[in-house]
């Protein structure tokens, strides 16, 4: 049996029946990582010893499914979530040797659920990028075509899950960083409602947009992880107090989509590739066949989403990244005096994309430009939020392709930041409005590249997302639970 092909839920079932042991699972995955990751570069840190140790300890927990729903299940963590005692780099030279003295809340909850943290996954530096080419530790390769990008910024997480290096992983999504790589790598990626999963210990990129979420090969695994990591956290002032739904139950019982009203903002999809449009139209057919009513809506504010995002996110980032000054931790390049040390440390410690965004954000917040850029962008954000509110007054969900294209070639867009940014056009609106969205695989291009689409729901309606996602998965099972052959 190829253990690496199994998802979290399936592994959990086998573990509980004692058909496999946690140690066997971990060893199988470590072996798979050793064999395959050289070509993908998904892992920045593999915690071999720690994983084996956790596996031994989880033996005792595997019967208690209620208390330890993930006992013995290996999980990969995007290297933007801090892990106690385990190097956390955020994909940056700046934090190359940073060993955090605490766990992110999401990580802590995984551990408390019995999960085994097998290692830390590659990403665009400080989660800034759509291709994973901005990692200080080399690009990640798409397991479906090693010449292509896996998407970003959670590219390592997506590639690792798609290639069977881990059954499930955590990513983070600021403007599509879970969903776009999930689409590029043919897996499931959920960006929960802003406030649903604690951001404590998530190295901040853009604080009003960042959310942590699961990346998995099937919908049930996403629900399993989501249930563990979500919920109120007093350490995060932006954490919602609402109790999360039992989405596993929802997934279990989802059958038809009868009566579900789904909206498509067709006008905003014109820029998508033909192949993406084609696969998306098939999604619409499938959803109709499941009983959903799919209708057209207008969401004209979406055409401003990229512009809004590329002001707000860099502005917040310019402030969030000020702490990397070479004083307390991380890289320091000593200069003649303090100020010189700041300039050298930050000038050389950050990569090109990060510097570009810090510059952009600093500009947008600086005296004389705040109103014209930052404040204006936040006003237009209101327009986007209103478009969602209006549509959700009449509809249950919105669907769109996740990305206008399938995975592009490594090096293809990296010289032109604006073109790269426009790749996020379908994912950004959900972050700006805070609404939950889940990307699901919906087939392949003729070259064999995965294509994805996303459901977006009203605030805190993850249960509706999961119900629709599970129904779609049942109808189109062939796109799920796939492991790329490499």
């Amino acid at each position: 049996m190829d253990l690496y092909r199994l998802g979290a839920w399936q592994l959990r079932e086998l573990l509980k029946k004692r058909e496999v042991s946690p140690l066997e699972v971990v060893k199988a995955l470590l072996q798979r990582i050793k064999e395959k990751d050289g070509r993908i570069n998904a892992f920045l840190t593999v915690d071999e010893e720690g994983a084996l140790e956790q596996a031994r300890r989880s033996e005792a927990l595997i019967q208690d499914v209620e208390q330890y729903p993930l006992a013995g299940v290996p999980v990969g963590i995007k290297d933007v979530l801090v892990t106690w005692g385990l190097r956390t780099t955020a994909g940056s030279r700046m934090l190359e040797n940073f060993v955090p003295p605490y766990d992110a809340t999401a990580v802590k909850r995984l551990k408390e659920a019995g999960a085994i943290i097998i290692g830390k996954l590659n990403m665009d530096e400080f989660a800034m990028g759509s291709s994973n080419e901005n990692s200080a530790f080399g690009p990640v390769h798409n397991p479906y075509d090693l010449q292509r990008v896996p998407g970003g910024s959670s590219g390592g997480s997506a590639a690792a899950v798609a290639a069977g290096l881990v059954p499930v992983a955590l990513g983070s999504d600021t403007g599509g960083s879970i969903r776009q790589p999930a689409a590029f790598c043919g897996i499931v990626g959920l960006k929960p409602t802003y406030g649903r999963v604690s951001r404590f210990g998530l190295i901040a990129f853009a604080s009003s947009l960042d959310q942590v979420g699961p990346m998995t090969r099937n919908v049930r695994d996403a629900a399993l992880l989501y249930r563990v990591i979500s919920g109120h956290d007093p350490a995060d002032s932006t954490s919602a107090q609402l109790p999360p739904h039992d989405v596993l139950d929802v997934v279990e019982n989802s059958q038809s989509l009868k009566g579900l009203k789904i909206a498509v903002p067709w006008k905003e999809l014109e820029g998508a590739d033909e192949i993406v449009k084609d696969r998306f139209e098939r999604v619409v057919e499938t959803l109709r066949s499941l009983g959903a009513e799919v209708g057209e809506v207008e969401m004209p504010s979406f055409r401003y989403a990229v512009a809004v995002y590329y002001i707000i996110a860099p502005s917040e980032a310019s402030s969030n990244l000020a702490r990397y000054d070479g004083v307390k931790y991380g890289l320091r390049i000593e200069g003649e005096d303090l100020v010189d040390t700041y300039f050298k440390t930050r000038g050389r410690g950050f990569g090109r994309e990060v510097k570009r965004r810090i510059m952009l954000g600093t500009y947008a917040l600086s005296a004389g430009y705040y109103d014209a850029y930052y404040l204006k962008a936040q006003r237009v954000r209101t327009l986007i939020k209103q478009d969602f509110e209006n549509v959700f007054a009449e509809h249950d969900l919105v669907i769109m392709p996740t990305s206008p294209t399938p995975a592009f070639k490594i090096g293809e867009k990296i010289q032109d930041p604006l073109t790269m940014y426009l790749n996020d056009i379908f994912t950004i609106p959900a972050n700006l409005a805070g609404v939950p969205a889940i990307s699901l695989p919906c087939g392949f291009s003729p070259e064999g590249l995965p294509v994805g689409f996303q459901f977006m729901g009203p605030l805190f309606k993850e249960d509706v997302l999961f119900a629709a996602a599970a129904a779609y998965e049942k109808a189109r099972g062939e796109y799920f639970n796939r492991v790329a052959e490499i």
Partner: protein
Amino acid sequence: MKELSREEVLKIARLARLELEDKEIETLRRELGAILGYVARLGEAGADNLDPTFQTLAKPTPMREDEPDEPLGADGVLANAPRKKDGFFVVPKVIE
């Protein structure tokens, strides 16, 4: 939008404490100019009378009780310090 001037780029870099090589400055003049040019479309959105959405979460900020916890302490906090001495972080001379 046209390119940013070299002075503008340098002024922002100073605020952000980023050392830039000459080549980077030239690239940034062009790239930032292009991005800001694209962003100019926000002016057509007609949102000037709307309230800004700084956050999407509609709830008041939660507050903490004033109860002390065990701090992490100097050893833990200094563990990753590039330079330290006698329980302090050490930084190069600060010119005042």
